């Protein structure tokens, strides 16, 4: 989690999710090739650079908009809000951090649940909002994911999880760690019910989210160039004291090491998921 905070707030500020979500300028600088690109052009490509294909971070809302059929998606479980079970306070109070995060991203918490259709196929989905406290998993995130899984079981539709998270929400202490167990345990329910569960890992997916529900999908996909792993690169570097290999913990590295099923370009995800879920749903040998 440490590196992620540095990544958001640190000096080497790259294209942050906020900039990606609400591009203010007419032009945008691609973090992949460094080219200056017309903002509208980037948005038309779902924030994928048309020159080099680099995937900038996007909000859940933007993703829902391009993934689901027009006017066929709806946000669910918006009534859930974080408590403050530890009465946590560092230099700031947790409650104040929550308010700030809400003001900044306006998403309620770090996960948004949707029911939507992909080319007519209904899907229950949880999507992480990285701009909300680094997509960190606290009680609300855990509860929302479980509810979206239960909804998939109730509606007999697939469950799609899109991750983008620095890990556990440490301001909720052990309650946040236990969300790893809670979400992972519910995957058993999906499996018992024969509900397909597809994970799409996006930049970045680390720590407690990576080491729980994100890696339990029946099929695990990733966006190109996403940083995905258990420990943050800086923590690893500090621990082992050697330079990390080129491309370490990127999607392509994971694919090479046999840890994920496939890398899917954002511009192809809608069609890809439709085909994939169609096959997983068909069950030609059902008895």
């Amino acid at each position: 989690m440490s590196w992620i905070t540095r990544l958001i707030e640190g000096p080497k500020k790259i294209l942050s999710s906020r900039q990606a979500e609400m591009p203010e300028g007419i032009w945008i600088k691609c973090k992949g090739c460094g080219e200056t690109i017309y903002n509208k052009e980037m948005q038309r490509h779902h924030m994928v650079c048309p020159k080099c294909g680099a995937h900038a971070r996007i909000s859940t809302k933007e993703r829902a908009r391009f993934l689901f059929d027009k006017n066929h998606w709806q946000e669910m479980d918006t009534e859930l809000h974080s408590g403050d079970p530890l009465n946590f306070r560092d230099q700031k109070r947790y409650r104040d951090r929550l308010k700030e995060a809400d003001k900044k991203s306006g998403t309620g918490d770090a996960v948004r649940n949707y029911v939507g259709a992909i080319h007519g196929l209904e899907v229950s989905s949880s999507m992480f909002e990285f701009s909300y406290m680094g997509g960190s998993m606290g009680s609300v995130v855990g509860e929302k994911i479980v509810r979206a899984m239960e909804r998939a079981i109730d509606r007999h539709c697939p469950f799609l999880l899109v991750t983008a998270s620095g890990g556990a929400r440490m301001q909720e202490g052990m309650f946040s760690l236990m969300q790893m167990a809670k979400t992972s345990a519910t995957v058993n329910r999906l499996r018992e019910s024969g509900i397909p569960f597809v994970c799409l890992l996006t930049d970045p997916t680390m720590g407690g989210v990576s080491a729980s529900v994100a890696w339990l999908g029946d099929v695990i996909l990733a966006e190109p160039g996403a940083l995905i792993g258990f420990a943050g690169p800086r923590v690893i570097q500090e621990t082992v004291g050697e330079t990390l290999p080129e491309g370490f913990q990127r999607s392509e590295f994971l694919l090479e090491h046999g840890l994920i099923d496939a890398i899917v370009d954002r511009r192809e995800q809608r069609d890809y998921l439709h085909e994939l879920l169609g096959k997983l749903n068909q069950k030609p040998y059902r008895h």
Partner: protein
Amino acid sequence: MATYLEFERPIAELTSKIQDLSEMGEDSGINIAEEIERLREKRDKLVKKIYREATRAQICQLCRHPDRPYFLDYVPLLFESFQELHGDRAFADDAAIVGGLASFHGRAVVIVGHQKGRDTKEKLKRNFGMPRPEGYRKALRLFKLAERFEMPVLTFIDTAGAWPGIDAEERGQSEAIARNLMELANLRVPVICTVIGEGGSGGALAIGVGDRLYMQQFTTYSVISPEGCAAILWRDRKHAEEAAEALKPTARDLLEFGLIDGIIPEPDEGAHRDLAGAAREIDRVLTSALDELLQLPADTLLSQRHDRLRQVGVYEKS
């Protein structure tokens, strides 16, 4: 040689004073028994006071005390005929996690625990008790063995966390931990987890999902170490004491939150000064928990375990 932490110093001083006096008494023939008795009483009171009033930051030190018993120190005191089983059948045997078959008051059990090292050589061999994916996969193999042969599982948690290394990432540290969480939640035999030292985040949880979760009195279980938390939220590891207070990671905190089933008391001076006393208390708690769980049919056991996990979390509705 016993190691004393800064806040344990007054105990060390009194202890050596008593020692000196006893030796002097023997040499000089003077009767100083009364004085020694007085100091002993004083020492007993001091011991009780220091540990009873230990702050969260001090308990964070106690749970990693260099003299604290490790899993393998308890094994011969808690179990008969331990047979260690090695390896994940795929890559390697990770010595940071030890597991195997044992007998607990005549009952066959599978035991799995983190193992730190005592001296430098063993510390390196055990990787300071920080498991790699193959360690978690070995643990899973043993959990499934227990399920197949209808044996309860007892796990013992004591790790700073899962190993943050290049090799661990290459072999799927995340996948290994995630899979254990899922499989443990569905294991059709009783699982009892006990924190005997440091409960370090996901690396601890990966052998920590079960029907009962106990913590010894001077242990912690936390989503992140106080040092790590301080480095992020205070941008300085020196604020670890404040972070320890904020994280509320002690056994007492987690019992209050309803996240654990009980605190296993330690002897007055802590497990690190009285291994046998500490083992007796663990034995007592595990015995009664096991008696209870062995009565439950697997379906009941599983639905209770699922309910426990399903309801964990604190949030508000609007």
